């Protein structure tokens, strides 16, 4: 297992290089001149433009620009945006917001999704089961952007239950955006759990557990749920990585100053260093949580062994 984890961690290195280069190339390929755009309506003096282009290596070909970026990175320098603000500062200031949002979203997704899925799975075809089926179908079929505005308008503006924007109210500010961010995965978790529980209820080993005269609670919790939750736990784990990177829409709608917003702004301003820095970090999160899931999978299911 240790060797497996070490190998997987080593494998992340080429992936990170590949991902950062791809992002770098894509920002490079964007039309327009980021330096000219800096000035807005008042064009910058040609000398200033030339100096900035020089400073940010914008006159070099793509390969050279990337190598220079890597050279700085090797010295622990993630670069700065065009206004001279270090990328590392942007990340360290904005990451906590995104992490909070992700934590709230994952909790909502896991707790509500699993409970709803388990209850629906245990009582297949019951009223509750049908409610879960219909509501999850509804949620999955609405785009997150639409859902975000509906939630903001209904619960934030009309009912006034939640703040509609910003993070002034601490964790409470994250509840509504967290719910919106989690909604798609929540529906998926509920359905995955339901199917998995329903399937396991019919398993031969559950019949054995009954034949052993175990109390009903033990049969359900120990012999049905534990087995049923293996695929669910692995999905939720992998989803942490996805949500950390997928909060762009939610953070924009609810005006949360997280890295999703940062990347959105950076792409529009063609801030190569900022985009590459943040996206590479997201890629790392994604790979890391997938590795955690794979390890967790082996812990939960003794049949899985990594050699």
């Amino acid at each position, binding site marked *: 297992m240790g060797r497996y984890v070490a190998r997987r961690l080593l494998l992340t290195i080429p992936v990170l290089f590949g991902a950062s280069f791809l992002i770098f190339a894509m920002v490079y390929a964007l039309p327009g001149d980021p330096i000219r755009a800096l000035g807005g309506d008042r064009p910058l003096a040609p000398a200033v433009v030339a100096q900035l282009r020089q400073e940010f290596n914008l006159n070099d070909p793509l390969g050279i620009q990337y190598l220079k970026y890597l050279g700085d990175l090797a010295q622990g320098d993630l670069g700065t945006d065009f206004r001279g603000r270090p990328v590392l500062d942007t990340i360290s200031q904005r990451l906590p917001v995104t992490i909070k949002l992700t934590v709230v979203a994952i909790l909502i997704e896991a707790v509500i999704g699993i409970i709803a899925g388990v209850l629906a799975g245990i009582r297949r075809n019951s009223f509750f089961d049908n409610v879960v089926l219909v509501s999850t179908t509804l949620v999955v079929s609405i785009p997150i952007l639409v859902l975000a505005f509906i939630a903001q308008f209904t619960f934030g503006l009309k009912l006034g239950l939640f703040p509609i924007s910003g993070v002034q109210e601490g964790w409470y500010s994250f509840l509504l955006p967290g719910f919106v961010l989690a909604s798609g995965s929540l529906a998926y978790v509920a359905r995955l759990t339901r199917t998995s529980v329903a399937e396991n209820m019919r398993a*031969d080993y559950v019949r*054995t557990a009954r034949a*052993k005269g175990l109390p009903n609670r033990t049969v359900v919790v120990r012999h049905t749920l534990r087995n049923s939750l293996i695929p669910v736990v692995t999905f939720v784990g992998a989803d942490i990585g996805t949500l950390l990177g997928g909060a762009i829409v939610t953070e924009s709608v609810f005006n949360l100053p997280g890295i999703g917003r940062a990347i959105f702004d950076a792409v529009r301003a063609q801030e190569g260093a900022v985009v590459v820095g943040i996206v590479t970090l997201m890629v790392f999160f994604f790979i890391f949580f997938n590795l955690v899931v794979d390890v967790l999978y082996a812990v939960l299911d003794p049949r899985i062994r990594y050699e």
Partner: protein
Amino acid sequence: MSTASTSLPSGPARAGTGPLLEVQDLRVRFRTGSGLVNAVNGVSYTVSEGETLAILGESGSGKSVSAQAIMGILDMPPAEITSGRIVFEGRDLLTVPAEEQRKVRGPGISMIFQDALSSLNPVYSVGFQIGEMFRAHRGMSRKDAKKRAVELMDRVRIPAAAQRVNDYPHQFSGGMRQRVMIAMAIALDPRVLIADEPTTALDVTVQAQVMDLLKDLQRDTGMGLVLITHDLGVVNEVADNVAVMYAGRIVERGTVDDVFSNPAHPYTEGLMSSIPQVEAKGGRLLPIGGQPPNLAHIPSGCPFHPRCPKRRIGADALPGRHCAEDVPPLRLVVPGREAACHYSEEVLGV
């Protein structure tokens, strides 16, 4: 004790002081999308101390369903038990509260299943799963339960039990897994053990070892053994009495020696002649013609009549004994032998 006397004890003579388990007129049906499926249609039998009763039948004859009804582990719905009594230790298990019924499973009656790999939970060690019996029924600590699990694994002759107690089911061979199932089932010294095709998933040499183990355990504990199988060879080797099932009914019952040497029902006769014979090398097997009955539409009269070579319909039939119209009851044909055929005497040749 000589091998001869252990492998073929002579029938009901071994029976102890009255039946341990008595099944009376058990009827089970399933509500399915395509209508009612009548899986068990009035099955009665008894199992005495030390007796091995084989329930013989092909797939869909109701043998497993009746066993699961006895255990109280049928999924209801879709299954429903429409009538019958299952008397164990003086109580009808079908009328006692669910919690009481649960307490019988394990210490009173226990069961082993066909496919030990899918019947054991893949995510718990075998020691844990055996130990659960002691924890659930005896309130033992996890540690003590594991100790008992090792003893049981020794008892079912799993080599190096102490080292293997923490292994998982997938790490065992098929035969060893079935031994784990057996260890679990006998953990609390049940009075009756129901073995539902315990050797079907195993290869032939391992089959013999597992059957030997079951017989040895039975001799040591005096438990009654209900052996559900479609394997005539296994029945012949280990059972005292046999009940042959067809379409959810018992069609013939008697000692294995009697039934096998001289069947009283045409279906049993058909089964016997379908056994491959060593002497008839190169000859053709004699299958029973036709299809097993569809349990949603059981034929009228004797359910076997569409396939029966000896049926009497129309003018051939005796009054009240029309094979396509009158259901033959299970009746005593000669002492010690019951059969559900209007013309058993002719089949028997008495």
